[in-house]
């Protein structure tokens, strides 16, 4: 790659306050708070999401830090048992519903889908803004639940704990997630309709960037799985408020029904988090290798396969909940099946790199981090899908480590990769490449030091959600907490150098990475209307090498 973005003090001084592209961009189309809060521009809505979910991430990360600090000593160094329960509940609720689920779709999906398909905006711009307001309303309920003392049910809200026994602001937290669900559904509808109806002439399904394919699959899950969570939370709230007994065995109800309904949403929700991440990596890998993506249709259809099969595996969360052995066997088999399309993607990304001329930039390092961590998370997921192993490690740190490898190692790493790849497009400035690489490496190392010991702890029998533990586990817990410190540093660094680049970074060209895709044909940052004339697409996707910087994919 070019040396653009490398630290160079002499040039940094010369960085202009405002480039011509910036002056005409969406960023300068009105500077008042009102122009941001009432915008219907998909790019500005993406920025609204970016700032709000960064805030939620910080809150949830603080809760995680408190947990890790507490676990430094066997008897619990910081929190009471009750406080620890509230910390991990808040960590889970906020990270899942207020960071991970909206992260890539609502920030990068919103920003990029219209640009990638050659449209001026999403199909329903006002609905798009409404979905941000709904999301923020849900966020306020979460903060209220937090400020009034928190919730101690765990993010899974299992009954009858959540419906009968738990104290704390369970209803507030349920309402928060309930409301955020509507935001998800509206976003999903917007994605599906936009991708169907607003593709530019010549942008056939076979020419869509895979980022768009994976978001299409994600949107299907958002639309079809979220309402099941909505109605489930409604039932729990009705049980707490009106004394209904659907999940209360004393009143004829069935607590297991809650688990069925909850995981019918929450397992596909894992794919809501990881499919967009796969879309990001499918863009980053060919751009870094300057090579056509290997097996386009396999990657595209495997996204749909994951979305489909992902709906049929929820019972693997319930192997020890007393469901029938036949049901468990079928769910176990289907859980192994869903690994196949995921593996296809990993093989295709790897094959794309083969004989490529690879640019080892920050975005690519994050993408590589994703592949490594996702493979670890996926393979341990296969172990957990096997009945015998699951019975042994159910509800231990092994499970905690497994899903953090997928959600944090996978989704968050890809989120940061996307941030580094599209930052110049979004804000028109190059960040410091060296710091970018440092933070990519820090995140990878910090993550492994944090969570690999948790696999070992889990296999040795450390149960999840305990605020104290036997002394022989201390070494691994201290190691894990130390890793969390590194990881936290890796997450904090981008906040600094990316914000710094806004003012001091070198102006970015329209296509700084020499990548294909319509978003790289418009100025950085893009003008409000994206394209002066509707583009006409005549070439296949990932048609590397580029003949010219601005040639259209």
């Amino acid at each position: 790659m070019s040396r653009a973005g490398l630290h160079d003090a002499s040039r940094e001084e010369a960085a202009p306050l405002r480039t011509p592209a910036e002056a005409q961009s969406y960023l300068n189309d009105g500077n008042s708070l009102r122009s941001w809060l009432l915008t219907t521009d998909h790019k500005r809505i993406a920025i609204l999401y970016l700032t709000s979910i960064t805030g939620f991430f910080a809150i949830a990360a603080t809760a995680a830090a408190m947990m890790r600090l507490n676990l430094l000593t066997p008897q619990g160094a910081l929190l009471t048992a009750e406080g620890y329960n509230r910390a991990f509940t808040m960590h889970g609720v906020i990270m899942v519903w207020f960071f991970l689920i909206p992260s890539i779709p609502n920030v990068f999906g919103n920003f990029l889908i219209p640009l990638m398909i050659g449209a001026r905006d999403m199909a329903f711009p006002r609905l798009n803004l409404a979905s941000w307001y709904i999301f923020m309303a849900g966020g306020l309920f979460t903060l209220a639940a937090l400020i009034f003392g928190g919730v101690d049910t765990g993010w899974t809200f299992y009954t009858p704990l959540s419906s009968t026994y738990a104290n704390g602001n369970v209803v507030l937290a349920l309402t928060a997630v309930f409301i955020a669900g509507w935001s998800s559904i509206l976003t999903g509808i917007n994605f599906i309709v936009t991708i169907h109806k607003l593709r530019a002439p010549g942008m056939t399904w076979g020419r869509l960037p895979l980022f768009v394919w994976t978001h299409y699959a994600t949107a299907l899950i958002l639309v079809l799985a979220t309402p099941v969570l909505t109605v489930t939370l409604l039932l729990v709230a009705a049980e707490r408020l009106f004394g209904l007994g659907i999940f209360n065995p004393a009143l004829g109800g069935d607590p297991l029904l809650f688990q069925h309904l909850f995981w019918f949403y929450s397992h596909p929700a894992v794919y809501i988090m990881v499919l967009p991440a796969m879309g990001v990596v499918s863009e980053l890998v060919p751009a870094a290798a300057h090579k056509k993506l290997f097996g386009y249709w396999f990657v595209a259809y495997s996204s749909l396969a994951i979305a489909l099969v992902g709906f049929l595996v929820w019972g693997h969360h319930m192997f020890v909940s007393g469901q029938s052995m036949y049901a468990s066997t079928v769910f176990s088999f289907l859980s192994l099946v869903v690994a196949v399309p995921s593996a296809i993607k990993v093989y295709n990304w790897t094959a794309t790199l083969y004989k490529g001329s690879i640019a080892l930039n920050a975005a690519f390092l994050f993408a590589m981090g994703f592949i490594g961590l996702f493979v670890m998370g996926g393979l341990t997921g296969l172990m957990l899908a096997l009945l015998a192993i699951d019975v042994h490690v159910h509800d231990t740190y092994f499970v905690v480590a497994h899903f953090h490898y997928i959600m944090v190692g996978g989704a968050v790493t890809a989120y940061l990769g996307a941030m580094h790849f599209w930052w110049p497009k979004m804000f028109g400035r190059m960040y410091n490449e060296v710091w970018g690489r440092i933070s990519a490496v820090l995140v990878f190392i910090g993550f492994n030091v944090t969570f690999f010991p948790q696999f070992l702890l889990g296999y040795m029998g450390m149960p999840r959600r305990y605020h104290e533990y036997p002394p022989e586990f201390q070494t691994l817990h201290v190691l894990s907490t130390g890793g969390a410190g590194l990881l936290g540093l890796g997450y904090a660094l981008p906040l600094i150098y990316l914000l710094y680049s806004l003012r001091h970074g070198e102006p970015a060209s329209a296509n700084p990475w020499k990548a294909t895709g319509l978003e790289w044909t418009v100025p950085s940052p893009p003008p409000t209307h994206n394209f002066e004339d509707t583009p006409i697409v005549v070439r296949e996707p990932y048609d590397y090498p580029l003949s010219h910087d601005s040639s259209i994919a």
Partner: protein
Amino acid sequence: MTTLRHEPFLDIARQREADRLGMVVFLASEAMLFGALVMGLLALRTFQPAPFAAASERLNLLAGSVNTAVLLTSSLLVAIGAEARALNRNRLATWMLGIAALLGIAFLIIKGREYYQEYGEGLMPGAGPYQDFGSPGARMFMDGYFVATGLHAFHVLVGVAMLAGCAWRLRRSDPPSKVGIENVGLYWHLVDVVWVFLFPILYLSR
């Protein structure tokens, strides 16, 4: 007159297609909302058929049947109203949608009376002068009954508001388009279809 075509679309026909698709996808989402409840009731019936039938026996079949007829009729009127709008017979369309909305209100009144009756007979979980379910399974049936029909009634309420709004706007200078009315109609048909599933599951499983 407000502009009909909105920003991201280059032509109005495509915008109308998008509006239609958006509504259909939303209805798929709504179907999953009720689908979860229906699956829960199905599980209950599979595992506890006798209490399920006993509880179903105690519902007011006459009221349920009348309500089915009321909703189906209003759906027919909405379909006629949308066609009338397509033929620019806006007055007819106003009448059709207005009467459909009134039928929706009639549905809610009948449903409300049913709830009151069940309240008096001790069939409302956690409320009423006394509780009389006969068995835990029957109580769970009534839980499911109230949640499913309550959620449905809420949808009826929203649908009535949308139909009345359409009827009102049809009298003004910028009436809603045919696709606009059809979209409201689609929503109303979904409310109808959900009832067509709930009615036999709840009332006829005796």
